[in-house]
């Protein structure tokens, strides 16, 4: 049961495969988790509006979103389970040494997830078994527990960036463990806020983009307009807050993980008056001014660290720039939405087709920004799995053959992703709307075949 003394991967290919498998499965899960955080809240909102106004469009939206939540929560729950397994099968040495330090966050996440799973069952299957108001209330724990799970999980990732709450003894074993200090490490507030807001944006823009398509084609029924407006407004309100939080995050990284910041901004050499570079753009002294409010401030460059502790800077910088570019574009879209809304209410103007075209892309764009941001923080931490304390290469499972696991996972997830999208697309069919709800109601109301 005790791990052998030999550290390190069986082969470089297995090590790369382990990292790719973790990145791929996490990247898959993060989108589903984002929807799992946001969609229950949107569903409850629509159901509440229905109860308040009696407008059947709200009822239809709540029903549809609840069904989509059912599918996406299921896929999200099982893809999250894979991550729990991978913590051990891919990174056993990380878990062996530090599992107890950050474990409390996961334990609390487990409790929140349990509450989510229980109320998902009650909410999805309880439409006809519970009085309307009680049913509405059972949706609230799902939304709250979803945000709580996200928070608890991010405490662990924040800890990997800012490890606290332990000391290492002469044998490299942890002592003086303080699990709460580990959970509430300096990176937790900013990372958790940034991620939860990002999840709301991803969910809001993705759901809205589904309804932008029929609106563009002129099938602008009230149902579609509300289906667009509720999630898009949610995401649009979050977008400007996210820009401020993003600024907070960059400043935090520049202070606490300056090497990651240097990689993000492409600062190769330590110098004063660093220009702000973005793709082909260059503003002299811009970065120094942005970061320190002083155009001549000195920023530490990558070359001031030994080569062995530098992250792969190109990946970090590119993904960071993608995230910033999309974030700014989404902010612009949010402003455009506010203007569209104002013109609609003031002058009865129709929503511009160009706005809807842009909105169609917003969902995918937000998901890409999420992945890019995640890549920035994860790749930017390399070569460390625990920043400054444990290298990723020392954490990996030493068993040979990990790469075959990656191949199997790639195939299964490709099929899973395709089928999930196919099922969701079929859910939009009008035939489903007309015929299927009846079938379904019979079942939830009366048990099998009654």
């Amino acid at each position, binding site marked *: *049961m005790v791990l052998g003394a030999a550290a390190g991967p069986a082969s470089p290919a297995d090590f790369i495969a382990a990292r790719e498998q973790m990145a791929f499965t996490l990247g898959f899960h993060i989108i589903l988790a984002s929807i799992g955080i946001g969609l229950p809240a949107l569903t409850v909102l629509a159901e509440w509006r229905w109860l308040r106004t009696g407008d059947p469009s709200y009822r239809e939206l709540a029903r549809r979103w609840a069904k989509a939540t059912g599918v996406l929560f299921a896929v999200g729950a*099982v893809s999250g389970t894979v991550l729990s397994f991978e913590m051990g099968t891919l990174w056993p040495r990380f878990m062996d040494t530090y599992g*107890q330090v950050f474990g409390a966050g996961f334990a609390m996440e487990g409790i929140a997830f349990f509450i989510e799973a229980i109320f998902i069952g009650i909410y999805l299957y*309880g439409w006809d078994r519970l009085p309307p108001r009680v049913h509405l209330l059972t949706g609230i724990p799902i939304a709250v527990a979803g945000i709580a799970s996200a928070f608890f999980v991010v405490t662990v990732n924040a800890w990997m960036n800012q490890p606290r709450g332990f000391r290492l003894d002469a044998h490299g074993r942890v002592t003086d463990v303080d699990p709460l200090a580990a959970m509430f490490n300096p990176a937790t507030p900013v990372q958790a806020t940034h991620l939860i807001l990002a999840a709301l944006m991803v969910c809001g823009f993705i759901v809205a983009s589904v309804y932008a398509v029929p609106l563009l084609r002129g099938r602008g029924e009230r149902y579609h307009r509300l289906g667009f407006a509720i999630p898009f407004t949610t995401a649009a309100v979050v977008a400007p807050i996210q820009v401020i939080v993003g600024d907070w995050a960059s400043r935090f990284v520049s202070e606490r993980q300056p090497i990651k910041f240097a990689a993000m901004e492409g600062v190769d050499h330590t110098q004063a008056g660093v220009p702000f570079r973005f793709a082909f753009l260059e503003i002299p002294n811009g970065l120094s001014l942005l970061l320190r409010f002083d155009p001549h401030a000195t920023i530490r460059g990558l070359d001031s660290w030994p080569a062995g502790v530098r992250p792969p800077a190109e990946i970090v910088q590119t993904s960071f720039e993608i995230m910033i570019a999309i974030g700014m574009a989404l902010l612009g879209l949010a402003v455009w939405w506010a203007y569209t809304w104002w013109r609609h209410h003031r002058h009865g103007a129709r929503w511009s087709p160009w706005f809807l075209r842009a909105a169609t892309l917003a969902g995918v764009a937000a998901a890409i920004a999420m992945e890019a941001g995640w890549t920035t923080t994860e790749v930017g931490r390399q070569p460390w799995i625990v920043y400054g304390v444990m290298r990723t290469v020392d954490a990996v499972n030493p068993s040979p053959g990990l790469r075959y696991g990656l191949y199997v996972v790639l195939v299964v997830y490709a099929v899973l992703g395709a089928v999930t999208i196919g099922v969701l697309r079929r859910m939009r069919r009008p035939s489903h709307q007309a015929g299927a709800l009846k079938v379904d109601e019979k079942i939830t109301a*009366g048990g099998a075949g009654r």
Partner: protein
Amino acid sequence: MSYADVAVALILVGLSAYLLFGGADFGAGLWHLLARRAAEKDVIEHAMGPVWEANHVWLIFVMVMTWTAFPPVFAGIMTAYWVPLSLAALGIVIRGSAFAFMKIEHGFKIEHRRRYRWAFGVSSVVTPYALGAVAGTIAAGDRHWLSPPGAYAGLLTVGLCAYLAAVYLTWDARRLSPNAATAERFRSYALGTGAVVGALALPGSIVLGVRSPLIGLSALAGLVSLVLLWRRAYLAVRLSAALAAGSVLWGAAVLSDLDLDAAAAHDAVLRVIFVALGVGGIFLLPALAWLYVLFQREAGSHEDRARAR
């Protein structure tokens, strides 16, 4: 009683709950594949629908408790058995997604079952087999999950899941299906698997050297279950069958005799976990009870019941 003992007890409680609830859902997947009649598949889908997500979380609970409370044990098991455990994880992904897709496509006018039947059924067998094989190999102190004890434990786990599922579904069929013959069929599945699993479990435990009164308890509960099934006491047999299956798991735990104290996390960690579980339990346990009661009640909308009153 040290903190480590409490943690072990909690992990065992979680494992038992996972076997008795999540395991039954795996067994239901096997019956879904084997059953010929649509009425039986209907019962399985309706019985599992609201509860399988919650039943699944017991596994997460066990894993998180193990890696937090006994990190070296978790790391050692995961390193040594990463192949069967990865198989189990993939089985969990396929099983859960296939079930969710099948449920949602029930609303479409296409043949929803044909698409997912095999994915759902096969993954519902692979996962408990792989998990059981790992547990059995560890309990017997063997090296490889493909060894005879591993294969035996894998098969036994699949059998236990199928047995529990058949027992639970007999009551669900009586509750949900308009056709009385459906419950009768699940009853015959339960009687059959009960006899087979009993015949598999008893000699096996003796060969593997389990010396514990738990064997007697399991055998007794198994016999009582067969009698209760015969007499159609479908609610009571749920308890006795759960006891029979649970005591097999506890017997394996006694056999494994893992030295966990040396691997335990610091008391400060365990204290935080226990407090979190205590606070969480205040919300969680009543909610869980409500979930089961709500969907075990006679089906019917709240309006129907209001009218009936």
